[in-house]
């Protein structure tokens, strides 16, 4: 049960990454920086207006959607067509910049948000669950449901899927690929920040925050086959399950090693994600 709650969290963290990769074939190394920045904006809102982090995340999402769009229009657009290494290093540079702007604004200390319900639990049947984890799970699920609706039902959503499948063909079909790319970069950035603000309910954070979650998000999307919506859900669930069972056999401090190891193994041995294993067996 705990694993499923964790999986919901991982899915929110990862979908932004998968969306940007899908449409632009671009690995967003600034994902961690955006998550961290989202967390700090939520903190500031909480300090200034006693705003609940969940409400804060709803403000952060459109804010960073705009930030992502602006970033695309000014910087990312220029390098979207160059070698993968160029975009990778550029976004990595952006991560460094975000991290250090956060240092300059908020300093180096561990920050956390404590709400009225931080330490309370609820009982479902014989299970007792932390309220914060349930809230994060529910908020994440709601966000993903809206996204799933957007991607599968709206015209723009269909265009996003078309561009992920085949950039050139989508362009020939008359889709404004530039606009779709800008939109998905904005959406991916917004989702990363949204995930960051939800994380404030569960963890304390510093400007270094996010690196670990970013790696886990990479792990999730690689397991899930990099682009598909279902893949992200499966990948999240698998990582969360392996982690929670892994703890039974190894020291808790080694838990993060699972994500790193799984990421490496998945990349090298099943670059098409878990789905490719299923397909290979069928073939």
């Amino acid at each position, binding site marked *: 049960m705990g694993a499923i709650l964790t999986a919901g969290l991982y899915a929110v963290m990862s979908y932004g990454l998968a969306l940007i990769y899908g449409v632009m074939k671009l*690995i967003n190394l600034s994902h961690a920086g955006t998550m961290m920045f989202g967390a700090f904006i939520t903190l500031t809102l909480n300090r200034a207006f006693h705003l609940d982090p969940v409400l804060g995340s709803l403000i952060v999402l459109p804010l960073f959607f705009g930030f992502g769009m602006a970033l695309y229009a000014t*910087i990312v657009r*220029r*390098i979207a067509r*160059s*070698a*993968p*290494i*160029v*975009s*990778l*290093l*550029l976004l*990595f*540079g*952006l*991560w*460094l*910049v975000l*991290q*250090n*702007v956060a*240092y*300059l604004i908020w300093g*180096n200390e561990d920050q956390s948000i404590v709400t009225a319900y931080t330490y309370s639990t609820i009982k479902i049947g014989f299970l007792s669950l932390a309220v914060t984890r349930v809230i994060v799970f529910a908020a994440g699920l709601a966000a993903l449901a809206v996204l799933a609706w957007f991607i599968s039902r709206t015209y723009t959503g269909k265009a996003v899927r078309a561009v992920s499948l085949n950039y050139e063909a989508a362009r020939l079909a008359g889709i404004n690929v530039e606009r779709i790319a800008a939109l998905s970069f904005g959406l991916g950035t917004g989702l990363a920040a949204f995930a960051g603000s939800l994380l404030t309910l569960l963890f304390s954070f510093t*400007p270094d925050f996010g*690196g*670990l979650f970013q*790696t886990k998000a*990479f*792990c999730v999307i*690689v397991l899930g086959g990099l682009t598909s919506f279902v893949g992200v859900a499966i990948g999240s669930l698998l990582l969360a399950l392996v982690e929670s069972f892994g703890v039974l056999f190894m*020291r808790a*401090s*080694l838990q*993060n*090693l699972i994500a*790193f*190891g799984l*990421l*490496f193994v998945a*990349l*090298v*041995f099943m*670059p098409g994600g878990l789905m490719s294993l299923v397909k290979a067996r069928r073939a």
Partner: protein
Amino acid sequence: MSKRDTIVAICLLIVLLLVPRVLGGTYVLDLGVLTFLFISQAIAWNLLGGYAGQISFGYASFFGIGAYATGYLWLHGWEPLLTLPVGALLAAVFSLIVGLPAFRLTGAYFVIATLAVGLAMRVVALNTEAVTGGASGLNLPTQVPGKEWFYHAMLILMCGCFLISAAVRSSRFGMALTALRLDQAAAESLGINVALYKNLAHTLGAVLVAIGGGIYAVYFQYIHPDQVFGFEISIGMVLMPVIGGLGTLWGPVLGGTLYYAIQDTLLTVFPFAHLLVYGLLLMVIMIVEPRGLLGMARLIKLPRLAKRGRLAEGTSTEPA
């Protein structure tokens, strides 16, 4: 190496040999030791990252292995200098363990895989207290030679790295690396064993970085997993050649010098601003000219040289 490169290198070496005798002082020696260390790392990373265009974020693991091999054996009564080959050997073995599977990946996938390895090694080091001292680190013996000894040791290491880099660059091996960077499929179709050359460059870089890690351990007499396996070390090794000029002979030298100079001047005034500067520099370089500062310099000179019909060698190579 062209004749001009050789002359510049010899002149620089003479100046660097004179510095401790003319200027002296602890500060200058410290500055020299660390700058040479950074430059040698940058050159070592550039063999794979620059010549072959395979960007790795995992080189801190070689640095850490070198540092801990020296630290551990030194505590067990070995002579520090004799531990350096052991660290280099361990790093070479590890580079193959990582490289053999990881080089099945190309482009961004390879980068992400090395990122995972780099981060994982730090966690492993933190959790193997018996060897690494875990989160409390390792205190090493305090009887060490004077700073002048380290200045010259690092200078030798740096010159060694530079000569190796220059030799690789003009060899068959270096040309194979360039070929596979420009077009891996084409290189393979010409019969170049891509996996072999990538692994060779990776291992050679790992050995050089590990030796630097070993000397570093002796110099500081204290090592900690967060420090020698830290992500900052890996980031630094990526940033230096990229800032200076990826895949060039002098790029890592220029980048390493600038990198440490920026860090040294900003670290005391604004503790976190140095990474901000690196980040901005990286973004500007990627947008304007992915070939780094040397590439920018060429960009300015190019029209004039082209008019004279003397196109500088290497300008036609694509950015990695």
